[in-house]
């Protein structure tokens, strides 16, 4: 039995004869549990519901009704149209996708290969190289921002999508290499030895054995990096100040500025579009996301 000490204590302190009190107490004892759970869920969910409802209200409703009032028309999607068309949200999302997916592909290909070389291949200096990658996890983005800005400026890359792709790839690599090396460490060496005896070259081993074996891990790592890159503000704000490649986060930050007076509905719709996209992804992949993000944090 794993009855918790917490509940034992409640029985003891509730007084009376414990045996007689036990059965009705079971229901009574569930009340605080339900209340606490309801409170925790409310804290998480209420702001998000308010966001959704707010995106359905007109500007007049926003200014004349209290902010907790329900929208008068629950199917008023006009704000979404304004956000998408006038607010350029569609374009910003496209930009984010243009920066995120190529970076993700590069991170995965380069990171898995490097992890393979660092764990499966035998060569001098591999521990040093792994440490070198690890050191990158510690470096704050601010430390590389200014030289990169200069470099991109002088190579005329400023204003294109390349500064984003290159920087995201490089900043995503340390954690990816580290995580992939950890995964490859768990794969028995004998598998690759057997392949080698059967005449497989090391490239063949990588493509036909190693990569398929860690496919699942690769997906998790890519998912973690997706959130880092998609939600990034610092790098995108720095490198898209000129040009037409503002990502969704930069666009959202500047959203209020575009209209002068705050347009509540469109702004809430813009935030909502951003949130709902992530929510859908989370609905399907939440267990993997939770595993990946927590694994990415406990390192060293």
């Amino acid at each position, binding site marked *: 039995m*794993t009855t918790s000490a917490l509940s*034992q204590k409640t029985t003891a302190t509730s007084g009376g004869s414990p045996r007689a009190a036990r059965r009705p107490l079971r229901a009574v004892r569930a009340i605080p549990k339900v209340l606490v759970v309801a409170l925790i*869920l409310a804290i998480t969910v209420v702001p998000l519901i308010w966001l959704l409802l707010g995106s359905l209200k007109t500007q007049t409703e926003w200014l004349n009704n209290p902010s907790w009032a329900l929208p008068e028309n629950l199917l008023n999607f006009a704000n979404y149209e304004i956000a998408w068309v006038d607010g350029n949200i569609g374009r910003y999302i496209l930009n984010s996708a243009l920066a995120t997916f190529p970076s993700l592909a590069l991170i995965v290909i380069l990171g898995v*290969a490097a992890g393979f070389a660092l764990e499966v*291949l035998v060569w001098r200096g591999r521990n040093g190289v792994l440490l*070198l990658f690890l050191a990158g996890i510690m470096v704050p983005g601010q430390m590389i921002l200014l030289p990169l800005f200069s470099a991109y400026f002088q190579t005329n890359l400023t204003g294109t999508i390349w500064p984003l792709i290159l920087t995201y790839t490089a900043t995503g690599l340390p954690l990816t290499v580290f995580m992939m090396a950890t995964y490859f460490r768990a794969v028995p060496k004998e598998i690759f030895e057997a392949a080698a005896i059967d005449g497989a070259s090391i490239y063949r081993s990588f493509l036909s054995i190693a990569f398929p074996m860690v496919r699942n891990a690769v997906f998790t790592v890519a998912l973690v990096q997706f959130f880092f890159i998609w939600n990034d503000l610092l790098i995108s704000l720095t490198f898209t100040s000129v040009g037409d490649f503002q990502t969704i986060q930069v666009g959202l930050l500047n959203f209020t500025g575009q209209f002068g007076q705050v347009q509540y509905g469109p702004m809430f719709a813009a935030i909502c579009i951003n*949130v709902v996209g992530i929510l859908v992804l*989370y609905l399907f992949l939440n267990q993997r*996301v939770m595993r990946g993000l*927590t694994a990415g944090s406990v390192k060293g």
Partner: protein
Amino acid sequence: MNNVFGNKRAVLVFVGPALLIYALIMLVPVIWSLGYTFFTGSVITGFEFAGLENFERLFTDPKVGEALLFTMKYAVILTIGQILVGYALALLYVFWLKKASSVVRTLVFFPIVLPTVAVALLFQKMFEIAPQNGLVNEALNLVGIASVDWFGTADTAFLVLVIMDIWRSMGFYAVLLYAGLLDIPEEIMESARLDGAGSLALIRRIILPLSLPVLLSSIIFSINGTLKVFDSVLALTNGGPGSSTTPLTLYMFRTAFNYGNYGYGSTIALLLTVICLLVTIFIFRSSRRDLTKN
């Protein structure tokens, strides 16, 4: 066999591209940034050698002092808050809700994957006073308290920032610590209970010491993240009112891009990096001493 696994060319093919990009875009800029600390100017205006001027300025600039203080205050308070709330939730998951906690865990975790900008804008509106009371002020009015101008004073703005970031991250830390709590062997808990340990004694003498390793790694992770706070401040308060909620990261960003001084910006970035390193080493050291003691 060694021919296959010791193949030099294969090593180069596999690790070379990653190392090249990593070196060019992270390692070289770190060194380059160190070089910038001896210059003033920007890539647009051109650079000028300044010797140790930036460092002198760093130590005398009251704004750096203010930003440093804010960064520290934020990092300490938020780390304590995140770990405390996270730990409380984790204990709740493991010992109270048990199997039923899965849905709660998943839901409370969700805000951490949301874009910080989106969350910050939402909280800005939730705590708004003009032109329209936000949800929080409405709730205060309901219980007879007058509306508060949350972003009008440094302390209340800081409070909103802390509330928001704890709201975002508590589920994440709860899951992180939950995994650590699950590793505690049930037999130890059971025997302690049989010996008559109450729930508080159980937490203090068994659960807390045994979850110390995962607590420490969470603290390191939290402090490293909070020292680098940028998105939430920029999007929620934009450093205001005045510059009262400006952390080092934001001050560095302004110095470099609004005032075009890359040299001084790099010097502030260096200060930030050194602090992150020192704090991590310090916590790591003290944790190791603790572990050998046990």
